[in-house]
Each structure stands twice: as C-alpha cells, then as structure tokens.
C-alpha cells in the first residue's frame, strides 16, 4: 500500500483518465479538481480529461456530473425510478386484524370507538393501519356526534380481494349460524353428548353400549 506515487510514470492520458474514473467511482464525496490534480502530477490539463470522461459517459446509465466544486458519478436521472423494485411479499393478517376487517365489513360505517366497544378491547396501533395498507378499508366520512369521529367502511379492493360481488353478498348472521360459522352454544361436551343422535343406541344391544367409549 505504501507505494510512491511521486515516481509517477509518464503522464499517459489514457492512464490518467482511468485513474480519475476510479477515484470518482470510489470516493464518497464529489472530488474537487484540485484534489484530482494532486493525484495526477505531471498531467497538464485535468479539465480536458474530465471533459473527455464526461463525453464518454454521456447517455449511459451513469453520468459524470459537477456538484459544487467537485466531480462525481451519478446514475442517470431518468433511470432513478427503475432502480428500486417493488417485490410482492405475502403477509398473513393477524387474527385481530381479520376480526376488525369483518366488523368493518358488517357494521360499516363504523368508528374506531365503536369497534373497540364491540370487541371489548382497545385497537392496537397497527391493526387498522394494516387494513389501510392492504387497501381494504377506507374512511367513509364523519359521524355527526361530539368529536366528529371518522367512520370506516370497505373499499372496492376489499370486494375484489374476497371475491364478493357487493356487500350484499356477505352472508347474514342467520346464514352464518346455519353454516356453523356462528356457534352460540356453550361448548360443553356433556351437552353435546345429550343432543347427539348417534348415542341413542338401542339399549338391548349391550355390546355396543359397553364398547362405545371404551377406546376413546
């Protein structure tokens, strides 16, 4: 690393241009002309070399630009938008988020306070944000009550995401009950046993009776 730059070769313009290129590439800050000159003893016209380099990169994906007193490489402005890439990344919604989504869908327009009251817990910070980020809920207006709280409803994206033609396509509470998704019965095995037909076995057939919960 400790080489003598002073023992500089004959100032070959091509070599000098290469060096400028490397210095500008590797420097964190724009490099001043003076600083470049200091690196190129014996080279008379550093400015001309910069011009040549600028021409060389003109129209490319990278351009040589002047920034204040210094020179630097920068990516071409027209490409800036395409440097960054949006990568789809599937994320699972939390149980709370899905429940809030459902409440918004069934009870819209609904305020945050109403959601909290219905669920009996405060809405944690991220929950509504996540739904907003997904684009499924949207503000629908303000309730004409003290404080004029914002109300929330579902968006078209929500319908698209869940394959619903319209909000009317959401099954009603009675339909949920019928499909077993809404079960209001207390879950107790004892009651289940009482109400289930399969256990109404004829008593006469004792073998079945005895064996019935034998292996269970």
């Amino acid at each position, binding site marked *: 690393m400790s080489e003598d730059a002073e023992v500089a070769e004959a100032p070959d313009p091509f070599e000098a241009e290469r060096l400028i290129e490397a210095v500008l590439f590797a420097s964190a800050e724009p490099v001043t002309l003076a600083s470049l000159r200091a690196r190129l003893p014996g080279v008379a016209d550093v400015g001309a070399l910069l011009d040549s380099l600028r021409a060389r990169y003109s129209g490319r994906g990278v351009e040589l630009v002047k920034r204040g007193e210094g020179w630097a490489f920068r990516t071409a402005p027209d490409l800036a938008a395409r440097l960054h890439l949006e990568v789809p990344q599937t994320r*699972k919604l939390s149980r709370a988020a899905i429940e809030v989504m459902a409440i918004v869908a069934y009870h819209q327009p609904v305020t945050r306070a109403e959601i909290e009251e219905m669920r009996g817990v405060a809405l944690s910070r991220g929950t509504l944000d996540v739904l907003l980020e997904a684009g499924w809920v949207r503000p629908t207006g303000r309730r004409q009550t003290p404080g004029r709280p914002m109300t929330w409803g579902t968006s078209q994206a929500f319908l698209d995401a869940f394959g619903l033609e319209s909000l009317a396509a959401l099954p009603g509470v009675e339909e949920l009950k019928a499909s077993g998704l809404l079960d209001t019965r207390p879950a107790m095995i004892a009651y289940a046993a009482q109400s289930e037909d399969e256990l109404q076995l004829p008593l006469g057939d004792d073998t079945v009776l005895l064996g019935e919960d034998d292996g269970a």
Partner: protein
Amino acid sequence: MAQERLPTFDDWEEQPAPERGPGLDVLLLDLDGYEGPIDVLLALSRDQKVDLRQISILQLAEQYLRFVAEARRRNLEIAADYLVMAAWLAYLKSRLLLPAVPGAEEPSGEEMAAALAFQLERLDAMRKAGENLMARPRLGEQVFARGAPEGLRDVARPVFEARLYDLLAAYGGFQARKTVTRLEIREAKLYSVDDALARLSYLIGAAADWQKLEAFLPPGLADPLYRRSAVGATFVAALELTRQGRIELRQDGGAFSPIRLRKATR
C-alpha cells in the same frame, strides 16, 4: 488436540518466511510464537527439504525430541501436548527402527510416518493458501466499491393473505363471543358410582347365577347421557366389588362381548 492454546503472534506478515527452518535456539526463543507441536514440526521440517513429500520423518522426530529435551533442560515451560507429541514421536521412532511385527493389527511405522507427513503437508498447503489469499487485491484495500452508493432498494410491497372463510369465521367468532354474555351451566344428571355400588351390592345377593351387567342398571334410562353414566358407574362398581372378593366377573367372547357377573362362590 491441544488442551491449552499458545498465544499467536500477529506480526507474522512482517516476518519474511524463512527459507530454512529456524535453529533450535531460535525455536526455543520463539516458543510462544508457535501454535502447538504440529506448528513446531512444520517449522523444523523446513530444515530438511523444500518438498514436504520428501521429508524424513525419522529425522524430524529426532529433531523434535532434541527440541523438547533442550526445552526441558533449560527449564522452559512447554505445554503438555508438546510432551504428548514427543512421546508419540519416540514411539514412532522405535516403530520405524524395529522390524515390523508380522500380523500386527495397528498401522506400521511407515504408515504412521506417512500420515504425519500428510498432515504436515496439508497444513502447510493451507498456510500457503492463506498467504496467497491475503496477497490478492482485497476489497477496501486495493480494490474499491462505489464510494457513494445511491442505494438499491427492493421495496417489499405487502400482499395480504386472507380468505373469505377467514373473514366469516372471524365474524362468527366475534358474534358468538358477543352473544354469549351469560353462561348458564345446567346441572348434569348423572348416575354416580356410589349409587351403582349401593345398588349392585344390594342386588347381587339375589343373583346366584351369571347375569349380564345390564341387568343391574337402574331404571329410567331414557336420557342417553344418564344411560351412559349408569353403564359406566355400574361397571366400575362391579370391578370394585370384584376386587373386594364379593363378586366374580367374566367376559367370554373377547372385547365387546357381554360382561357377566355373579355373587362370589367362596
């Protein structure tokens, strides 16, 4: 394997690699600079030939034994694994000098020597490989990356996953939680084991012959849960009375066949 590690010296790169191995004195002076016996052996081996494949292990063993003897004579502190290696090399030396025992199970002296030579050669190769790697132009020292990276972002665009089923199930769960505000637990009507014991003890007196278990069930078995509890309790009671030696139980047809019982015939 070394039990105790000797300190390394960080200034290796400043030292020109010796063409020939160091003399005994240098070796002893530098004892702290060596990483265990293999390292010393490698240093000693440079005394012989450049090509480790041609090395005389016998000669190397002698050099090493001289080194250890000299270290002990000078009361230099050397770690236990140096002595272990010395013992092993002394043994190897004897194996190399004495004729091989025919039919011996263990490897011959020549094989042991060759294995040691292999180990030295392999380590030496890795040492040289390391030096070669370090001699390459390194990123951040001779070769440089972009000094002012403009950042390249792969922005994660979240796509949320939820099915309609999840949504409806969540709402169902929510409604259910909301609806059931008061949970009433009805008294379960069950036939107790105590009842079964009392009933069975009473009835068994009259049963001199084998009778099915069902014969002892209480009346009023319309309710299925009650009926199941009666069967279970009566069976448990029958087991208890059998244990007490008051009745006998039998089941002739294997699993699920009728269970019969009668008063003990003692």
